[in-house]
């Protein structure tokens, strides 16, 4: 089993359903695209940046998703080497999925402490529950129909 399969299996073992994993993959793609674009933006030569801005711009005008996809893969190739495109994509995806798994484990852990009455965990959670950020997230989740 390769790393990617292992990472997905870990999520599965944590209780993620196939649909939930697919949803995470969906989000992961956006996140990884962010990473790729950010790496390129911060590290590529100015000329290359300009060239690729133009390419994106053209693809946008033509509303051509295939072109977008091709440009993104070109960018991965420029940054990490042509031969490493698939490897790099997989690597980034694995790291992301592992982060999600860790986050889930940590969340479960803090909840466990909370439900066992750990005073520190209880205090922090109760304080955080009232924070505007959490309230905002809850509101967004309710709007999404999640409960």
């Amino acid at each position, binding site marked *: 089993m390769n790393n990617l399969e292992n990472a*997905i299996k870990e999520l599965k073992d944590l209780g993620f359903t*196939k*649909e939930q994993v697919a949803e995470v993959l969906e989000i992961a793609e956006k996140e990884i695209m962010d990473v790729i674009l950010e790496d390129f*933006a911060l590290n590529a030569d100015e000329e290359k940046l300009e060239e690729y801005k133009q390419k994106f711009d053209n693809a946008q005008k033509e509303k051509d998703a295939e072109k977008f*996809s091709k440009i993104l893969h070109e960018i991965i190739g420029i940054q990490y080497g042509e031969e490493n495109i698939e490897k790099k994509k997989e690597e980034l995806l694995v790291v992301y999925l592992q982060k999600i798994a860790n986050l889930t484990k940590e*969340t479960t852990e803090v909840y466990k402490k909370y439900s066992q009455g750990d005073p520190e965990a209880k205090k922090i*959670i109760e304080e955080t529950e009232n924070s505007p*950020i959490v309230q905002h997230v809850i509101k967004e989740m309710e709007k999404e129909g999640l*409960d």
Partner: protein
Amino acid sequence: MANIEILNQSEREEGAVRALESNEDSYLKFKIVGEHEEANEQLNITEDIEKETLDQNGNIDFDSDIFEERIRSLKEQRKNAQDNKERSEINKVIKLTENVRKEVHLFGFDEVKQNYQDRKNKLENKNSFLKNPQEVQKIKNQKLSEIDPTGTVQNYANIENTAEIIDRLGILENLEKFKQEQYELVNQGKHDEAKEKYNTTYRSAVMEAYKLVGREHNKTLERKEIIDKKHEEMVRRLADGRTETNEELEERKRLQIESKTLDNIIKAYSEEFVQKELAEKHNLWIHLERNVGSNTQGDEIEGREDNEDEKRKWHTKLADIIGKVSKTQVLGALSGAAVGGAVATVGVLTGTVSVPITVGVAALMIYSGVRGKEPMFIGTKGFANRRISKIEKKLENDNLSEEEITKLNTELQKRKKWKEDVTQFTKAFSVGAGGGLLGFTGVGLLGASLAKGALDTAFASGGSASAELGAIGAGAAVGAGIVSEREIRDSQTLDLIKDLNISQEKIDEMRRKGVFKDEVLILDEKRGGPVAKIVGEFVGSIKEQMKLEEINKDLFLYKIEEIGNLHKQNQPINAKNMAMEVIEASRRI
């Protein structure tokens, strides 16, 4: 007394020139930042100085002996002076007197009078200069090009009145200086002093900046409200059947343009300022993180235990500050493009661990770093944002000059802007065009097998994974990402506009102005959300009664914008009535 009169006058004269020079700077400064009242006050002071100086003209009674007498008397005064300050003041007057005496001896009274006249003319010229708005504008432009040589700031916001930007840059420069000072203090191990200054100077500087930006921001908002009301009134009159004269048409167009310009200014107030603030705090954090607890050579400081405690306290304090940054980022992410993803992730996680939602989110927040750890977001955004670039690494170098830091920060901002622009392009297509530009979801157009294969394997017992993924991918086109939903709605609006035979140039122009993205679509965060529904109802009602080609295009587009604006202000929107207004007005026109 005559000699004293002369000397006092000389002093006044010299002082007047000096004061005027300084006064001119103040006047320009106030003019440039748009504080016209203060500028005029400065001008009044200038006029007072001038008047006082000129009043003395004609009363000059030069007599060589009186200089000697005056100098002797001053020296006597100096001898009896109470302190150094007084002595120094008397020295200045003695020097001035000696100069006047020298001038008189060398050139004679007439020459000195001529010098005086020259200086008087200089004063007049200065005043004339100050009263000339074109000259002031020239200086203002020069100063602008010094501060913003590439025109980035101006282009960024497309602001006609850049005065506010200059002012803000001035304040930010102060913050930059403050940051350097903090670095030095920490490097010297003067943590208490650094903290003290942070709590006093920095906060008050930030407060000052916020106050100024807030004040100007409010002025802009007020102005925009007035403009929008006027514009709205003109359109309403038009819809009521009143024929519009050419002048009124021009005025209506002008108001619309001004409204958009003000929008840009409003946007610039928040974005540019906040960006710089965040960068400033970020750099401070990185530096202190590395330096508190060690001296400049990186050796351990004596009294490690105490220092650890100190370090912890200091970190807690900084965490509060950074916490504010991360909260801003979190809120920004939640209200922006990440909302779909963020909520979905939280949903997945809380669903998986079966915890009550509020507790789940709270727990998630705690472990995602909102409280006291490195800023990071709940499974989204933080993944990319925590990566360190070459430029950021360079910025961590302690030996950088202020100029180098500013240059690097500018480059960083420029590159981040690149990423932001490109992300807008790509995300709009990542799901909207069928999902999976990178091929993870199995429905991408290129390299579709990566994650699909792994998912198939990991869920081997689950059966038709690829079919389900296909369905998810297709559904994702409308369901999983708000960006794509915007794009879809945008396309629908565009199709309709194309049906109206509105030129591509006009569409591009409106896109640039943000009519589609900013006014209508960004407000609408959910598929089938209120704005999309209202626009649908509005268009549907028009179509019921009128052929599209008969619609007045300007009115139609204006109403689309108006829907966005009303929604933004939480005002009730009656789509059918709006449609009727367009229909009736179109028929009349």
